[in-house]
Structures are given as structure tokens and as C-alpha cells.
């Protein structure tokens, strides 16, 4: 394995952390004796991101509008921001303000992810604007969204949560805010087609209090009402909705 030379933004500490992650990936016990970055105790996560795969060659980077500062991001999130399940989420088509807020969130420790925390610290707001604008403009697979209110009787409990919520637990339907079929709207991120592992991890983070980027704890309150089984099922449900031609 080799750390790609293009990751010039990466601070040494990240390389170290990635190495540590790779070396000790299988044996989580070995991760405990990590290096201390910037005086903070280094706590690699159990599911620390694996090594980014080799880039596919420079030619592909000549896509119009691709800012060179985004190269480091593309190592994990890919050139078009599709991401790879287990490595990094899809960041294509995210609302631009939401994108910025999340990177600020990583910087401020409102989201707990060692890799993204370290990376985000190197990104100035000016650079972030460019990167966010680029990835946000990347297209998402076309799907045919189903509007809320299309169907009254829904027997599948997951689809029911997504389309009608469960107000006895004060859970509004997911699509009320995330838009029809969860395609995203305004400053609210799309769920359709996002990697299931990632969706699940975020809902779990909220449930456990690890993610606090949401204004007024809107998502935290919802996630805290969901069972682990429901989280798993919702993650798979929205992932499936985003398959090209899916609905």
C-alpha cells in the first residue's frame, strides 16, 4: 500500500493515522497505541476508513470544473463524488450550504470521524467553497420520485415510516423534510441512493449523541426514537430507492 503523493493537503498526522489504520485494521487491539496528533489523544475508530484505492490516472481529472484542491477528496469520495460503500459516502449532489456546514462540523468536532476531522482542518473556507460547489454540482442518478400522499394504505413498516412517519413517537415522515423518495431539497441532504452503511452509521451516531450538526437536534430526536432494526431497514430502503430506474 502507498499513500498517494497527490494528497498534498494531508498533514503528516493523517498519513500516520491512515497507516495506523491500515496496519492495525484487522486487529483493532493494535489501534489503541496510536500517535497523538496536536496534543489530543489519538483514538482511531474501530471502523476507521481503509486505505484509499489507487487513483485511476491523471487523465480523468481533466473533467471540467474539477478544482485541483478536490483531488485529495476524490481519493476516497471519487472524482464525481460517488464515494464507495465502506470507504466514504457519496458527496455528489449535496446541497452546497449543507456541504460547507458538514465540513465545518468535522472541524469543530460536531461529527466524530478521525479521518474527516484531520482532513477538514486543512481546508480553508475559500477552498471549501470551490470544492463544495464542484461536488454539489455533480449529478445524481435519475429516479422517479413518489410523492407523499400517493398511497394511504402502506403495509411495509419501513415504507410507512418513510412516507407517514409514526407520530405516536413524534417521528414525522422522512420524506416530509427530505423530499419525495428522499431526493433531497433545499438544505436537506438526499437519502435516496446514499450508501446504506453510511446512512445507518449517521442515524446511529445521532442516537448515541456523536453527531450534533443538526439545528435544534431535529434529526437527533428522530434517530433516538428509532430501533436498531428500523435504522438498518431505513438505511437499506433509501439506498434502494436511489438505484437508477428505481422509485
Amino acid at each position: 500500500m502507498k499513500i498517494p503523493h497527490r494528497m498534498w493537503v494531508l498533514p503528516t498526522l493523517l498519513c500516520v493515522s491512515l497507516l495506523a489504520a491500515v496496519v492495525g485494521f484487522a486487529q483493532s487491539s493494535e489501534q489503541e497505541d496510536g500517535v497523538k496528533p496536536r496534543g489530543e489523544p489519538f483514538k482511531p475508530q474501530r471502523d476507521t476508513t481503509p486505505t484509499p484505492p489507487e487513483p485511476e490516472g491523471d487523465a480523468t481529472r481533466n473533467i471540467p470544473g474539477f478544482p485541483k484542491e478536490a483531488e485529495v477528496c476524490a481519493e476516497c469520495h471519487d472524482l464525481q463524488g460517488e464515494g464507495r460503500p465502506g470507504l466514504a459516502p457519496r458527496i455528489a449532489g449535496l446541497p452546497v450550504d449543507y456541504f460547507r456546514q458538514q465540513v465545518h462540523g468535522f472541524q469543530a468536532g460536531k461529527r466524530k470521524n478521525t479521518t474527516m476531522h484531520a482532513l477538514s482542518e486543512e481546508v480553508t473556507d475559500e477552498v471549501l467553497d470551490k470544492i463544495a460547489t464542484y461536488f454539489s454540482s455533480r449529478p445524481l442518478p435519475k429516479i422517479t420520485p413518489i410523492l407523499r400522499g400517493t398511497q394511504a394504505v402502506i403495509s411495509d413498516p419501513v415504507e410507512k415510516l418513510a412516507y407517514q412517519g409514526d407520530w405516536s413517537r413524534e417521528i414525522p415522515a422522512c420524506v416530509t423534510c427530505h423530499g419525495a423518495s428522499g431526493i433531497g431539497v433545499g438544505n436537506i441532504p438526499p437519502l435516496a441512493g446514499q450508501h446504506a452503511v453510511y446512512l445507518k452509521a449517521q442515524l446511529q451516531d445521532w442516537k448515541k449523541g456523536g453527531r450534533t450538526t443538526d439545528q435544534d437536534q431535529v434529526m437527533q430526536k428522530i434517530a433516538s426514537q428509532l430501533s436498531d432494526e428500523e435504522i438498518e431497514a431505513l438505511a437499506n430502503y433509501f439506498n434502494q430507492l436511489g438505484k437508477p430506474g428505481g422509485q
Partner: protein
Amino acid sequence: MRLIQFALLAAVLGLTLTACDRGESGKRASDQPGTELPDRQEAIPSPDADSGLPKIQPRPFTEIPDSAFGEKIKRGYQLFVNSQELRGKYVGNALNCVNCHMDAGRRADAAPLWAAYFAYPAYRKKNDKVNSFAERIQGCFTYSANGAPPPADSAEMIALSAYAYWLAMGGLMNHFGIDGAVPEVSDEDLITGAKREDFPLPDAIATALPVEQRDKLPGRGYPKLEKPARDFSPDNGKEVFAKHCMACHGPDGQGYEAAGIYNLPPLWGKDSYNWGAGMHRVNTAAAFIHANMPLGKGIQLTPQQAWDVAAYINAQERPQDPRLADFDGDVQRLKERYHQHPGFYGQKIDGKILGENAYPDFQQMHKRN
């Protein structure tokens, strides 16, 4: 500011004016049968939760029967949640009934349909007129949806009434331990509402709920919000808006749209509720916002914040009060007649009289084309 005036007025009125719409069958109504502006409504009370009257929960939708009657119920649900299906016909703005009546009209304390169904027909002493359930719904079409009221005998009205009836009856039958499907009733019965002696009801329910009690089901309307400690102020509300509302409703209050639906709905401007709608009154909006906003995280603003932000969103221009035509376009005369409540219609804000630059109401929109 003239807010002190409002506060005084609010105090005098005891903040009791809570009806959704304030229509009065106007002069111009007669020339267009079926489009008559709905009658002025009595205030919608927030009934005592401890009155001993049943607190009901509608049945799950999976119990909607597979029958022609069941189809009407489902259609009512669809129209209530996706009212944009009726855009241009009966709906003139970007709103859906569900935007203000949470959980598809099922949630207690968010003006639920089941409580409303048993509150009509409502008798109004003042003009000796009785409002049917259909007329009440017509009110929300005319003002909240800035549209044209669907005729009482239209398929849409029958569907919405069937849905409301089914929600109410299923909940009551469960409460009183009555098994079996909700009995079917005729279309004529459906559109009038259940607050009358001759409405077909199982005996147990008819006895437990005498007619004069039927409009008092706990959970009806929006819970009354205590008066603010200091006068409500749009200026202070602006800050509340930026901090707690803007992320979803947009910096300009115009909401956001996905797949052609403003699922994050506009709070003012041409696509929001008009100057005759209940939500334009500061007290009604404050109660709604305090209980329901941010969505899913209600009851976290202080009452003061809720009043202030309600004032802020309602001190912005929106579609015209459709009754203005009856006053020859005189905003001040209309204001005197119909806007004696906490609100900003006809008031000067930032150098402009609200109402004088209003966006077109449904009639005006259609005259233009």
C-alpha cells in the same frame, strides 16, 4: 411602534378569535353559485383535555375497507396530503392541507380532522346561519389554500369528508369497544358533519356524546398559547426566524421544492396562505408554531419567541384577502370589518401598508388569464 395597539387589542379580544376563516357570504357571491365565500366561522376553541370526553386515536389505515366507500376515504387522504393535485382548480398556492394539519389531519392539537368532523354543522347565532362540515372545508380552500372552494357535492368534498368521518368514527368505535367496520353513510350525511341529532351513529356513541358536547373533543384546534410577557415584535421575530426556521423555510421564507412539491412550504409571498386565512393571525400562528415547529421538535421555543416569529412571518405581504372586492378595494374598510384581531393587515410596516401590495387571490389570478 404600533404594536402596543395590537397588544391592547389582543388583550381586549382575549385572543379568542381563532377561527380559520372569517368569510361572510358576500354580495358578489350570489352571481356565482358554488363559489360563494364561506360564512364567517365561530372561534375554534381548544377544549378542556380533562372534560371526560373521549380522547381518541384514529384506526390504522390498513383497516380502511376494500370497497367503494373505502376508495372515497383513501381519496380524501390523498387530496389532504397532496392537495397540489388540485392546483389551479381549487388550490391557488403551493400549500397542502397536511402542511398545517400534521400527520395527515390525525394529530391531536394540530387542528385534527376527526375532532372537526364532530363539530359541524355549527350554528352561528349572529346571522342565524348553520355551517356544514363542507362549508368549513371550503373556508380552508378559499383562504389557507388561496383557492376556490370545491362545491359541497363534488367528488373531492365527499372524499375529504369521508376521510374525516372515518378517522373520527374508527377512533370513537375503538374507544367505546365497538368492533367491526365503520358504518357507511350517504354522501349527503358525509358532507354535513356529525353534530346533529339525526346523524347516523351507533347508540353507545350517540348517548355518550350528546350533540352539544360533540364540538368539544379533546385535541381539537391548536392548544392556546399563553400571552407573551412583552408585546410581540416582528423585529425580534426576525432573529428567531434566522435561528430556528430559515434552514428549512429559506432565508426569504419561500420554502423549497422537490419533485414539484414545496415539501418545505412557503410562509409568505404569492404561494402562501392569503390575508383571510387563520394562520395570518398572530395568535393562531403563534399557537401553531409553538406546538409544531421546528417540525417534530415542537414546544421548544419559548412562548415569547413563538409570538415574535409569528408576528414576523405575518408582517409580510401575501395574497389578497378575497373579500376585498366587496369593499371596492378599500383595505382600511375591509380591515375594520374583518381584521379586528392580532394581525398586520392594513398596518404600515417598513413604510408600506400591508394589503395594498398584496399578491393576487384566486379570483384575480383567473381574471388575468
